[in-house]
């Protein structure tokens, strides 16, 4: 197959996604180190207040959560998936205008939500738990962001449908298949938060409802909240399965197992939300236990992913001359920022996965729920496995889209290692603090109850923050420098999509058919949620926000 290239306008469209993503990261990830420094006792918030950068810790934390975990992720993902659909199917989008409409809706949504936060009308954190009430502008912004992403997803569906009509019996290329599958997961997931926002939060914030039931709202939120993390993670998996083997010099070990893993993630990532509600009073223990079991079942596709990715890398390392049981590991291109970012992301993700099992294990959750352990955990997952992988992707994708060379490869390499080191230090200390009982979402540098024994760990959080502050702005600088001032590349970047070891046509057809899997996912959601929701909805206790402003 010959090279396929995207048109200029397609490149620009995807580039806009990355631009918004990186702009959001450059603001959102400023506050993370500020939080870490507060823990360590270096409190910059008085200065930030004077400079009107943040009124207080919580406004900063809201910006941090929303801009990083919602905006950076969603825009990078929709951009990357758009690339995968077009490049994977080797055809343009069926309705490019539809996708553009979705994108601009998302942008308007982000602007509205950001305005509400910056105007100090929405310091409700990125989970916006009621009955804290933000300005309706904040909720409207989130609704537009979600609906815009749905529309981009519909654009993918139409495109895939068209491609399938023209290519009967041909297996959908993996990167395109997996991208559309990720969108399907997202649409199942966001149904929960859409119900919460459209039927509860938005009308309530506009004064049309006097109160809402908080337990019901939490339940719809977490219907969304857990698959949200798979929406972040699956695009990183697309890169680990679909690109990394080739970038490391090898092939994808098993296309079949890669697809099966994706389907299992789609089946198992929604009907599990109660693992965020183990300590909620309103859900019966038996249902919490059922959700714990379903959650733990993701062990299977996760271990499959570990196997396939490691096997693909082992093959690459052996081809590069690695000998013995682990010799292949040393032969991998650890000096290539694109590869190193993903290898380090995967390595730290192993600890994220182990921690995740502890979180999900029903009663062990009692020890860590709402403690610093939890941000310790997800800075290994979304902020490292996902974010560092996205950084690695942008080191080839941005040169591809702009036709410019990656500036300063060495700086990029250092950036990647700094991030992994910083996160390792930061996250280890956060986990330990959590086990001692330190609460999350709290400026621990100011909390009167913090005992002196915690100070060593709090200091380590701050030290991790120094590494990360440096790393994140190195990244932003490299991106800006490449995109706007980079040297024009002499030859275009080669897109390194991994070939599977066996002919893709040998992948069974049932792994390339959508209806049974989606029906199964919907069925599981109905089983896992209907009885509890009927119970909750038939005993609602509507509650309004206090009159006083809380932040």
């Amino acid at each position: 197959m010959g090279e396929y290239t995207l048109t200029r306008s397609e490149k620009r469209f995807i580039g806009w996604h990355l631009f918004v993503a990186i702009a959001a990261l450059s603001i959102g990830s400023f506050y993370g180190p500020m939080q870490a420094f507060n823990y360590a006792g270096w409190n910059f918030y008085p200065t930030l207040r004077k400079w009107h950068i943040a009124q207080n810790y919580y406004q900063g934390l809201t910006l941090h959560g929303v801009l990083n975990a919602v905006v950076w992720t969603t825009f990078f993902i929709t951009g990357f998936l758009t690339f995968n659909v077009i490049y994977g199917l080797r055809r343009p989008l069926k309705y490019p205008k539809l996708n553009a409409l979705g994108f601009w809706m998302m942008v308007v949504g982000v602007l509205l939500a950001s305005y509400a936060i910056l105007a100090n009308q929405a310091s409700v954190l990125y989970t916006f738990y009621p009955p804290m009430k933000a300005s309706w502008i904040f909720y409207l912004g989130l609704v537009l962001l979600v609906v815009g992403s749905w529309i981009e997803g519909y654009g993918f569906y139409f495109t895939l449908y068209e491609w399938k009509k023209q290519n009967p019996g041909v297996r959908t290329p993996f990167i395109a298949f997996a991208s559309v599958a990720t969108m399907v997961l997202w649409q199942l997931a966001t149904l929960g938060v859409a119900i919460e926002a459209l039927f509860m939060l938005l009308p309530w914030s506009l004064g049309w409802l006097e109160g809402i039931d908080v337990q019901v709202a939490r339940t719809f939120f977490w219907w969304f909240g857990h698959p949200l993390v798979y929406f972040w993670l699956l695009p990183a998996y697309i890169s680990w399965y679909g690109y990394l083997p080739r970038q490391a010099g090898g092939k994808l070990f098993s296309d079949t197992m890669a697809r099966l893993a994706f389907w299992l993630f789609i089946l198992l990532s929604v009907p599990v939300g109660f693992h965020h509600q183990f300590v909620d009073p309103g859900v019966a223990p038996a249902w919490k236990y059922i959700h714990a079991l379903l959650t733990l079942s993701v062990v299977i596709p996760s271990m499959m992913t570990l196997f396939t990715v490691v096997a693909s890398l082992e093959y690459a390392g052996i081809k590069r001359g690695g000998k013995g049981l682990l010799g292949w590991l040393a032969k991998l291109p650890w000096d290539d920022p694109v590869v190193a970012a993903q290898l380090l992301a995967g390595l730290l993700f192993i600890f994220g996965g182990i921690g995740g099992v502890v979180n999900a294990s029903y009663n062990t959750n009692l020890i860590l729920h709402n403690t610093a352990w939890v941000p310790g955990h997800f800075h290994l997952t979304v902020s490292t496995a996902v974010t560092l992988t996205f950084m690695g992707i942008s080191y080839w994708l941005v040169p591809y889209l702009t036709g410019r060379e990656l500036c300063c490869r060495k700086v990029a390499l250092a950036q990647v290692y700094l991030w992994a080191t910083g996160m390792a230090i930061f996250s280890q200390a956060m986990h330990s603090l959590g086990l001692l009982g330190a609460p999350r979402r709290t400026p621990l540098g100011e909390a009167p109850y913090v005992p002196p024994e915690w100070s060593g760990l709090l200091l380590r959080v701050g030290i991790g923050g120094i590494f990360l502050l440096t790393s994140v702005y190195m990244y932003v600088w490299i991106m800006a420098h490449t995109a706007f001032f980079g040297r024009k590349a002499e030859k275009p970047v080669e897109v390194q999509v991994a070939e599977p070891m066996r002919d893709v046509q040998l992948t069974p057809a049932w792994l390339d058919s959508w209806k049974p899997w989606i029906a199964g996912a919907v069925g599981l959601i109905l089983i896992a949620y209907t009885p509890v929701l009927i119970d909750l909805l038939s005993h609602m206790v509507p509650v309004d926000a206090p009159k006083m402003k809380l932040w």
Partner: protein
Amino acid sequence: MTAHSTLIDRHERRWILISAALLASFAVLIGIAGFALGVQVPTLDRRVDPKKLNEDPMWSKPGVRELVPGRKYEVYLIAQTWQFVPREIVVPAGAKVTFYVTSRDIQHGFKVLDTDLNVQVIPGYVGKLSYTFKEPGEYKFICTEYCGLGHAAMSGVIKVVPPEEYTGSQ
């Protein structure tokens, strides 16, 4: 070779079986810990209107109630912006203490350090959870859910005293 074995690599099949065994053992162990050994998650006691807590005989005077001297106690605890009511709780060591926790306004968290007591405090809902403090000492409890500007200062203490010294709470 069967069609099956060409689909899944031999080693991978073994790896998946090991993973499944691991999964089964997790499921069984946490099930035993929870349902046989009693390391349990909080449950729902009842629903209440948070606006009417003062009219409720139990909630108008939150605090400790002695059910069986030295053996069984219950604690009614209200979380509100930005304090716990009461802030100080005294119970004897070795007694089973059942906590009933609710919120007067927004969400809070109730976590007692060095124990597995942890509940999301949700207005409208009363969470129920129990614990036996074996060792005398001071156990801090902390609000673990963001509840506004005063959140970081919201805490209290449970004083667990030797049974012979116990003369009631407050």
